[in-house]
């Protein structure tokens, strides 16, 4: 394979050269990767299997059946507290919006997933670390409501550092809002599947992301409540190898499956078809 021929050992940091635009490097093993093939491989390193973070738009394309996705997310953030740290929140928002071309840290809409009518919501880590403020909370609640009204399954791909500090208590309240909204799906017997990707921590893990009927996690993803830095400061010890990684969560019984991204859609479809009462028996579709 061409990629293997081109694979190079990671250079010592001193002699780092610029990698040409067409090429990128695996964050884990340092392999030189041809960008086009790397993308086609869903940002998984073909050499070592490391799962890199994936842009939200491509995540949608990867999971929704071709041509079925209709975006419904449309809300824009405000600055309800007039929050200023070293920079005003309003200014930070503008920067994130310019960088991502998105209004806030979530994109979602209706689609079919393996033919199952669904609402798909994908968090965008590139926007303020995927943090949940009022917009993310409201879009999730509306997504749930839409799924309940239209008899759709709900799929949420989480990627978030947690609740958004700059909306403070209002961000915290989104945890309760999103969690309570899920009751609508329970009442209608509609499936909710969540996919935890790198990283999923804080108020997102501790609310809707943890409450799905079936929870998938991507290999190596950092998943937890407190971030590793905070824990290290609290206990003043080094953390055990693999702590808070997807495989650790699987071992401790917190997630159903750790699934390679290249198999994720297939398994997701399987779960949705099993769960959705409106989908007839059709093994191996």
């Amino acid at each position, binding site marked *: 394979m061409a990629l293997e021929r081109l694979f190079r050992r990671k250079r010592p940091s001193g002699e780092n050269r610029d990698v040409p635009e067409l090429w990128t490097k695996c964050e884990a093993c340092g392999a030189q990767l041809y960008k086009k093939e790397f993308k086609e491989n869903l940002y998984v390193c073909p050499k070592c299997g490391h799962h890199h973070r994936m842009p939200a738009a491509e995540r949608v394309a990867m999971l929704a059946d071709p041509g079925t996705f209709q975006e419904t997310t449309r809300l824009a953030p405000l600055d309800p507290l007039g929050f200023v740290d070293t920079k005003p929140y309003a200014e930070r928002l503008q920067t994130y919006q310019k960088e991502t071309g998105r209004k806030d840290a979530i994109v979602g809409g209706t689609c079919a997933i393996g033919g199952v009518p669904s609402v798909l919501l994908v968090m965008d880590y590139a926007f303020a670390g995927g943090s949940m403020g009022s917009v993310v909370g409201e879009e999730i609640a509306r997504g749930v409501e839409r799924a309940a009204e239209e008899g759709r399954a709900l799929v949420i791909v989480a990627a978030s550092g947690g609740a958004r500090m700059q909306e403070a208590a209002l961000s915290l309240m989104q945890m309760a809002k999103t969690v309570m909204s899920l009751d609508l799906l329970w009442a209608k017997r509609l499936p909710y599947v969540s996919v935890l990707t790198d990283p999923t921590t804080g108020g997102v893990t501790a*609310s809707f992301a943890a409450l799905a009927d079936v929870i998938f996690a991507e290999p190596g993803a950092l998943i937890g409540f407190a971030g590793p830095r905070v824990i290290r400061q609290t206990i003043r010890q080094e953390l055990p190898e693999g702590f808070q990684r997807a495989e650790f969560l699987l071992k401790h019984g917190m997630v159903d499956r750790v699934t390679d991204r290249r198999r994720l859609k297939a398994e997701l479809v399987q779960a949705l078809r099993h769960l959705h009462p409106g989908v007839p028996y059709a093994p191996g579709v």
Partner: protein
Amino acid sequence: MPLEFEKPILELEKRIQELKETARTTGVDLEAEIRLLEERLARLKQEIYGNLTPWQRVQLARAPGRPTTLDVLAKAFQDFLELHGDRAFADDPAIVGGLAYLEGQKVVVVGHQKGRDTKENLQRNFGMPHPEGYRKAMRLMDLADRFGYPFISFIDTPGAYPGVSAEERGQAWVIAQSIQRMGRLRVPAIAVILGEGGSGGALAIGVANRVLILENAWYSVISPESCAAILWRDAKEAPKAAEALKLTAQDLLALGVVDAIVPEPEGGAHKDPDRAIQNVKEALLRTLEELKALSPEALYQDRYRRFRALGAYAES
């Protein structure tokens, strides 16, 4: 131990005390001087306590001697029977709960429990629960639903414990479950923020029909120190973070995050805990009365709508 900003008050009080002592022992008439100083003291108190900064309130919320859940249970409730354990792993001393009467009314109570001294604080993990604490809380929510008794929670935690064991046992999962369980209660639920309302660890027992907060308590998504450490890259900027987070009772009332403020005695609840606890009791009785008319389903809907409405965004 006096708080830094209270020192001028304490110094003046000391001087008045000394003058009184001198007058008593020497027989010299210092009445006029004392009265003058007492007037100054009143003005000083008004000036300091009437203009507390958010950071000063955070310090009051953590002041030793501030009423804890068990203090409130002992003084505002009758016949408290503490129940222990999560029926799965352990009993968490950072969350207490059980059965009690409030003016003759049967209620189920849960609350974070901080220690009242260093030794007890170590035992109670400074009021920072592990997953078993939230599982105990959920057990008690089940009990409230089963018997139809109102559920009352007291919030006073810097946050859920950020440690290896807590993560191994699914801290995020139990917090999410506790939020969900409390949201589904079919009985009146009232939460009172006594001191610190630190993030998800506080919200886990805060999904109530009415959320009350003591005048100097705080409630936010992160503590001012942690927020400062992340956004300012320096925990010492906590006073600025406290300002920016809008975490005071007044700010939270304006945002709709809390429904009512329970007044504290001058200088904070620790100056006169009995008075503060009495105020909590009166607020609880008023709020219970208010919720009495609602059916189980209406209580659920009321809570659902309360949290569904929170947030600020623009349609576009």
